[in-house]
């Protein structure tokens, strides 16, 4: 199965002319402003377009079509109702700069979302503007920096990050002008407190933590960590990537966190869209509340209104042109209303039940669990170090062999400190039957790996393409199509890879 590029389907002069103005309007723009060559856009019919993109969609794995146990990404079902109601014309046609008097419906939803997020985290206030988890992190760390600077404590420029952290954590700290200090993980998966105590000092701005961690375990010493950081004058940042595991069980604020972000596209079921849009809303306790990014939705006697610089003079400023990914916020709002209090409390129950069940079943099937003596959170780690050593069958081979069985691969090679690992997150929306099917598929691959391993090495063979040459992709960079007549080839850069 393969599909021509949309450009290759076209014919000069063909068009989907129902879709644009019937006549070409004259303009009187001076020639220096006007384009001479048309851009390289397809010349195709509407049916060409519909058929082409329908076919392309069929070349994807997705939650709607496949089990997708991608660790740390929380690929749960995205309820269709959330999309339908967020797409009502009153919402999609609302201009971001429409007057507040014409925006009370939208503002009501956003204000109530802020309130519900406060309840599920214990934070004092939320700003909904960050457009992805990484931007939520940027907001949070910038707020920590702004807080120290505001107090005249300008020497606090170090951010502590566990070695197991997601790559965005250290990258964010650097973007905020901080230096990064890594704290190691103990053999049981918890942060090494002894090292942490030595790392902190008057230079410590704060720590960025995920709990449960990216290793799939809840750090039991979180209160001790809090005491160390706060005693040193630092603040605690909560990376909400794994909030799904503790929803209704623990409030990040009660663990001692001062600021956090939530990935609405994980815990609150908004779609991942093939890589975005996400939403990384940021919440703060009383200490950091004045520094939240603008705008925030506030109330007055006459209804809801935007709070901006004038209301929040210490704000770190604006992170998006308008209000962040508003449509994503509406989907999360609808999801929370559909589940309600009792439904949200159930999320963690069944996400954690599913993860522990699959962990136990895989252990029984002969897999090496990285933290066998710990409870799984909503996800857990398997290592294939043994299989790699004996038969050369790697985590990547397992991942690809799963694709041939109609299952999306778990996260591979993350966290970096666990060799040949798979991070498996089933989510609460998958049934026991699906989980059993997954365990059976994994068991089958394990048997193959134990015999020759050759089949795993060849996988996948049922997908539209087999394993791709990534080295060639980087060395002979081909990142846009060029029609054959212009240069006879599509490679535009020939440079050594990084």
């Amino acid at each position, binding site marked *: 199965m393969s599909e021509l590029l949309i450009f290759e389907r076209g014919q000069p002069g063909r068009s989907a002319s129902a879709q644009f103005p019937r006549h070409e309007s004259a303009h009187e723009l001076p020639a220096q402003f006007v384009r001479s060559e048309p851009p390289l856009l397809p010349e195709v019919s509407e049916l060409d377009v519909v058929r082409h993109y329908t076919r392309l969609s069929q070349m994807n794995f997705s939650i709607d079509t496949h089990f997708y146990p991608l660790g740390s990404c929380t690929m749960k079902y995205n309820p269709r109702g959330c999309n339908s109601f967020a797409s009502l014309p009153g919402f999609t046609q609302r201009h971001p700069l429409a007057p507040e008097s014409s925006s009370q419906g939208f503002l009501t939803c956003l204000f109530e979302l802020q309130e519900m997020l406060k309840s599920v985290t214990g934070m004092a206030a939320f700003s909904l503007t960050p457009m992805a988890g990484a931007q939520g992190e940027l907001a949070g760390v910038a707020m920590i920096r702004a807080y120290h600077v505001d107090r005249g404590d300008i020497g606090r420029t170090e951010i502590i990050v566990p070695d197991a952290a997601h790559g965005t954590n250290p990258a964010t700290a650097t973007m905020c002008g901080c230096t990064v200090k890594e704290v190691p993980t103990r053999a049981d998966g918890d942060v090494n407190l002894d090292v942490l105590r030595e790392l902190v000092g008057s230079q410590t701005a704060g720590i960025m933590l995920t709990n449960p961690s990216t290793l799939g375990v809840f750090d039991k010493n979180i209160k001790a960590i809090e005491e160390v950081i706060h005693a040193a004058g630092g603040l605690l940042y909560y990376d909400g990537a794994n909030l799904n595991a503790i929803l209704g069980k623990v409030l990040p604020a009660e663990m001692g966190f001062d600021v956090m972000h939530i990935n609405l596209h994980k815990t609150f079921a908004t779609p991942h869209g093939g890589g975005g849009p996400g939403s990384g809303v940021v919440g703060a306790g009383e200490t950091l509340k004045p520094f939240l990014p603008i705008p925030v939705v506030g109330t007055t006697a006459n209804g809801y209104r935007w709070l901006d610089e004038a209301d929040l003079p210490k704000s770190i400023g604006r992170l998006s042109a308008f209000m962040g990914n508003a449509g994503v916020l509406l989907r999360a709002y609808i999801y929370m209303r559909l589940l309600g*209090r009792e439904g949200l409390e159930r999320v963690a129950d069944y996400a954690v039940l599913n993860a522990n069940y699959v962990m136990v079943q895989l252990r029984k099937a002969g897999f090496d669990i990285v933290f066998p003596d710990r409870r799984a959170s909503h996800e857990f780690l398997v290592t294939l170090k043994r299989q790699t050593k004996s038969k050369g069958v790697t985590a990547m081979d397992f991942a690809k062999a799963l694709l041939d069985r109609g299952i999306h691969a778990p996260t591979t090679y993350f966290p970096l400190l666990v060799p040949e690992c798979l991070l498996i997150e089933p989510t609460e929306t998958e049934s026991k039957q699906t989980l059993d099917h997954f365990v059976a598929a994994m068991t089958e691959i394990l048997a193959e790996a134990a015999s020759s391993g050759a089949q795993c090495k060849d996988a996948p063979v049922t997908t539209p393409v087999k394993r791709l040459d990534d080295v060639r992709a980087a060395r002979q960079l081909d990142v846009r199509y060029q029609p054959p007549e212009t240069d006879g080839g599509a490679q535009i850069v020939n440079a050594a890879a990084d």
Partner: protein
Amino acid sequence: MPFIPHTDHDTQLMLQAIGVDDINSLFDEIPDELRCGKLMGVPTAISEYEVGRLMRRQADKDRVELNFLGAGAYEHHIPAAVWELTTRGEFYSAYTPYQAEASQGTLQVIYEYQTMMASLTGQDVSNASLYDGASALAEATLMAVRVNRASKSRRVLIPQSVHPHYAAVTKAITASQSIELVQIPYDPNSGQTDLAALRSHAGTDITAVIIPQPNVFGVLEQVDEFADWAADQGALGIALVNPISLGLLRPPGEWGREGVPIVCGEGQPLGVPLSSGGPYFGFLTCREALVRQLPGRLVGRTVDRDGKLGFTLTLQAREQHIRRSRATSNICTNQGLMVTAATIYMSLLGPQGLRRVAAESHAKTRGLAAAAAMIDGVEPAFTAPHFHEVVLRLPVRAGAVIEKMRRQGILAGIALSSWYPELENCLLVCATETKTDADLHTYVQALGQQIEASRAAS
């Protein structure tokens, strides 16, 4: 249980397999003193039917008949096929295409998108998109500072005619990178950037110059002079453009003698609904020599084991998940779904359709401005040519007129005085191809009436 498929029997079997009595036991590693009570701030569940009623009620409150607002978000016709296709579950509910073999659909869409955006902007390479136009400008600024190693000042010139929210976002995101943003004023007559003020910086070390086209007033800047001056100073040009306008206007790759090497902007006009400001997507394109400093995801074409063409994420060594604290950006995701919509939109329009939409939007705004100028006391605030937005100077306060026209179901424009105090009584208005001549007539009549009423009242 909404969206949870477990029967009691399933749950019992699973708990037995794990070897615990109940689900609560699975949380036994969480210290008791940390366990929270019920989430009392969240209302109890309501059915999909009830949620539907609630959301319709909220959505209906915000409906307006006629929208003449622009200022960074534009109402264009979106062909039905765009979102019919984009919301197919295979696009909508997929994740980042890390497993390339299982993501060829998304990857090919992005490759096609990259091709279209590179050509539209006159560049060689496009990334897979960024969050929105404002954050794209911030990332383009950071990129320019990384690229221009010959310059030591980290000083970036930003015209005052750049959308104030874009300037604010760029400031917030680059705040801790010791980048100095220097504002260049606009000419109060033409509405273009004051080139004399720009040239007063000649001979100083300038790292980059931001060039908006059109600028926030809808006015076309003298981009050739701008680009050439930046090049003469050894500064990198960063073009900030509206993608619809490029159906008609000369692309930044052709500005001045050498063209501008970095281009960014807001992708929303390409098939993404207004939606209160998001999700939109930012685009960022550049010359091939700069590709290794380009932030964000990039899709490349390569071959599989059988020599068959296929697509994969490439140059990932630049990205945060590999480079961690040495990464040059913390961007993790792109706006994949919006890019899917934009790619389908551009495919449906083609070169002819995009030019017609641009030309028609330009014509409608010109028509509106001409008709409005017939009202006593109303005049265009600026003399330079504009694209599809215009600033009208009214004889009365713009805010009062806006509120009165809102009550007639018309969003009349933006009162510019909140961003530019010196532009008192000025109204920023946009008319795209979606407006009929009757709509323009309705607008101008209402504007005339409300000005008259305001005058009578004062």
